[in-house]
């Protein structure tokens, strides 16, 4: 280092004692800081004075402890005594003495680090692996005699770990470490301190590499799980095979092919073409404009969800296709207006009935339904199919087949073809499922359909002529023919009139009687008071076979008409089994339509709710 001129050849600076330490409470050393030597070689001398002694002694050993140190061996070390130590720095130019330093060896004990730190993996009694750490006290420390009492401290960390884990161990020289991470490499160190002294430096690092733990238990568990699940899978597959369940189809359901509404594949397979076609309903019925002014208008059917006339299908297929909620598009057979052929005939005869009386706005398929499962095309073509209005004349008693009637909806709009209406009516009337099924006369004409057609056409003709319907008689015949169970006379040649539902036969056909008939022998079977009003609106259906009718406000009479199904022999009986097919009316013999001031027969009342 460059010295300034002033610093050149100066007496030394004042030395200063840095520290004194005793490693084992038997010897000690002191170190001082070298001073600026003024460019000249400097000599250091250490003098000490023992407590209680007058004279000063010089350091016995300047070398053992290193440069600028003084080492006091055992002979020169006394405990519980204060040393007065000074250092003198001397050079050519002079000398300098440090401040006195008072040192009691008792309180400067700092041991050397422990040695022989060994790490070993051992197995505990319960099979757990632990790390056993062993070390020795520093060689110089006399612990055995008790002169020095050492306490130890460990620290551990994984090789890549950030923080050390420090463990105070006490006076033992071994320690067990549990909860180490298998597969890790650990570093360990240990240090010690005398009972009232200072901590030593940390020992050198020791390493241990923990093996990855292969636990037979773990492997066994996995093996067991694998075997068990495979066994379960096999069992399941086998069982499914037994049952014939096609799981593939279940998981990946086949993409449904295009389906023609109303076309029942099962029927096709079964070869029941007639039924199939009837299920399809009247299709492709060419609309003619003839009927438009002839036939009426709207038969509005109150579209309450509960009120749907549903046919009793032996096979039940059309019903399946029926969706009660799907008013617009479903065109199942049997669903249709409440028109009976006779009614229809009568309607056809009549003048147009104001559409306003219709309650239900959208017919959409009543007609179609009446025609059986009419195709959607029909509907699409004539969304506003009109049905003859029943209201003014009531409903002639006629057997009302338990056809599939969708929610009572009567298409608004122009009725395109009376024939279709007739067909609808007839088909609606069809009691037999098979009869109904033959709705699609176009494709599979049957005598039924032919008859209906004839009747319808005849009706049309009649209408035009303004004559009474022969067709009615024919319809009657047809009806009779169709409904062999029908016993009571129901149709007569007369103008359109209110009908009262006379009965519902087992097939679900409604036998409606003309209103006049009430005076006839059937009167006694009309227990309902206030029956003058025929209009009734079915508010709801109860129990699948009870229609709750509600007359209009005008009617003073009963608000609710409810007749439980009667099992009476007479033509009324509907098989209990057929209840499910949602007869519109579980009409006992005395069933009467109650008019609630409505001017039309609410088709709802004929609608069987399909539940």
């Amino acid at each position, binding site marked *: 280092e460059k010295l300034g001129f002033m610093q050149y050849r100066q007496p030394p600076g004042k030395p200063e004692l840095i520290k004194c330490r005793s490693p084992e409470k038997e010897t000690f050393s002191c170190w001082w800081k070298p001073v600026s030597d003024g460019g000249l070689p400097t000599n250091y001398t250490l003098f000490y004075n023992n*407590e209680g002694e007058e004279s000063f002694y010089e350091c016995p050993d300047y070398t053992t402890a290193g440069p600028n140190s003084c080492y006091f061996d055992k002979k020169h070390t*006394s*405990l519980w005594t204060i040393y007065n130590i000074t250092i003198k720095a001397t050079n050519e130019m002079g000398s300098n003495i440090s401040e006195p330093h008072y040192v009691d060896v008792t309180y400067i004990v700092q041991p050397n680090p422990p040695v022989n730190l060994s790490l070993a993996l051992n197995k505990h009694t319960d099979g757990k692996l632990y790390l056993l750490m062993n070390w020795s006290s520093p060689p110089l420390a*006399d612990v*055995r005699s*008790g*002169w020095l009492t050492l306490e130890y401290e460990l620290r551990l960390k994984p090789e890549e770990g950030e923080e050390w884990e420090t463990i105070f161990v006490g006076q033992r020289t071994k320690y067990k470490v549990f909860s180490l991470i298998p597969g890790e490499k650990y570093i360990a160190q240990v240090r010690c301190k005398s009972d*009232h002294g200072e901590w030593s430096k940390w020992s050198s690092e020791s390493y241990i590499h923990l093996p990855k733990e292969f636990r037979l238990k773990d492997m066994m568990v996995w093996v067991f799980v694998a075997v068990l699940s495979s066994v379960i899978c096999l069992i399941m597959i086998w069982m499914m095979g037994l049952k014939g369940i096609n799981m593939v189809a279940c998981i990946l359901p086949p993409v449904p092919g295009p389906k023609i509404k109303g076309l029942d594949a099962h029927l096709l397979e079964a070869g029941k073409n007639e039924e199939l076609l009837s299920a399809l309903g009247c299709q492709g019925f060419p609309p003619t404009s003839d009927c438009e002014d002839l036939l009426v208008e709207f038969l509005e059917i109150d579209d309450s969800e509960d009120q749907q006339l549903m046919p009793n299908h032996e096979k039940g297929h059309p019903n399946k296709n029926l969706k009660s909620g799907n008013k617009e598009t479903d065109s199942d057979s049997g669903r249709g207006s409440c028109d009976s052929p006779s009614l229809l005939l009568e309607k056809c005869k009549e003048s147009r009935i104001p559409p306003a009386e219709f309650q239900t706005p959208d017919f959409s398929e009543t007609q179609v339904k009446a025609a059986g499962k009419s195709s959607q095309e029909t509907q699409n073509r004539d969304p506003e199919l009109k049905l003859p209005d029943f209201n003014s004349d009531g409903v002639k008693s006629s057997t009302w087949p338990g056809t599939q009637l969708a929610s009572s909806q009567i298409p608004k709009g122009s009725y395109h073809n009376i024939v279709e209406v007739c067909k609808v009516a007839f088909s609606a009337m069809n009691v037999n499922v098979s009869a109904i099924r033959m709705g699609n006369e176009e494709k599979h004409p049957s005598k039924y359909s032919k008859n209906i057609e004839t009747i319808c056409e005849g009706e049309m003709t009649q209408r035009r002529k303004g004559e009474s319907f022969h067709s009615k008689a024919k319809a009657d015949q047809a009806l009779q023919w169709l409904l062999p169970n029908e016993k009571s006379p129901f149709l007569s040649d007369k103008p359109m009139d209110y009908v009262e539902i006379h009965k519902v036969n087992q097939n679900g056909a409604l036998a409606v009687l003309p209103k006049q008939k009430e005076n006839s022998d059937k009167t006694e079977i009309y227990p309902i008071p206030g029956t003058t009003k025929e209009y009734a609106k079915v508010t709801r259906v109860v129990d699948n076979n009870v229609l709750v009718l509600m007359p209009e406000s005008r009617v003073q009479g009963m608000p609710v008409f409810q007749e439980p199904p009667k099992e009476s022999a007479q033509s009324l009986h509907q098989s209990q089994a057929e209840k499910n097919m949602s007869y519109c009316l579980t009409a006992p013999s005395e069933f009467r339509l109650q008019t609630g001031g409505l001017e039309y027969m609410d088709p709802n009342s004929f609608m069987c709710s399909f539940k």
Partner: protein
Amino acid sequence: LICSCQRRACQVSLGDLFDRAVKLSHYIHSLSSEMFNEFDERYAQGRGFITKAINSCHTSSLTTPEDKEQAQQIHHEDLLNLVMGVLNSWNDPLLHLVSEVQTIKEAPDTILWKAVEIEEQNKRLLEGMEKIVGRLHPGGLGNELYSRWSGLPSLQLPDEDSRLFAFYNLLHCLRRDSHKIDNYLKLLKCRLIHDSNC
């Protein structure tokens, strides 16, 4: 301490007695050391008390081993005797220390509390040692050692500086002697109980 019943009387083992004694002596010295350091920091800075505290302990009349060799050469009875002598010699000073340290103005509570604690523990250590001596030397140790303390007046000096030095000196001596006792007892324990194989 586990009391094992032998010969009608319930006795604590000698090893347990020593363990307890060593614990107490260790504790006492820790307290003394802390107390001294606190006092030194607070009252003795820059006063050069240390220079004056040479050969100033009242127990220095008792010749005690000053290194390991001396300690190992001395007979355990004599060592025990010395321990008892030092402990007895401190009974009185500790009592006065408690009362007088409170007069130090603004004496911290820690110093006060430690003085009380040391005095109490010292008494218990004395009792324990008497038991050990009774066990080892039922006839007694003979030459009982004792150093009388006469430092009370200096604790009551009106001169603050002198008074503080008196306290400093007393605490300095207490620290040293408690360390001695602790060290001796540990030696004795290892020698007598563990056969010098601690």
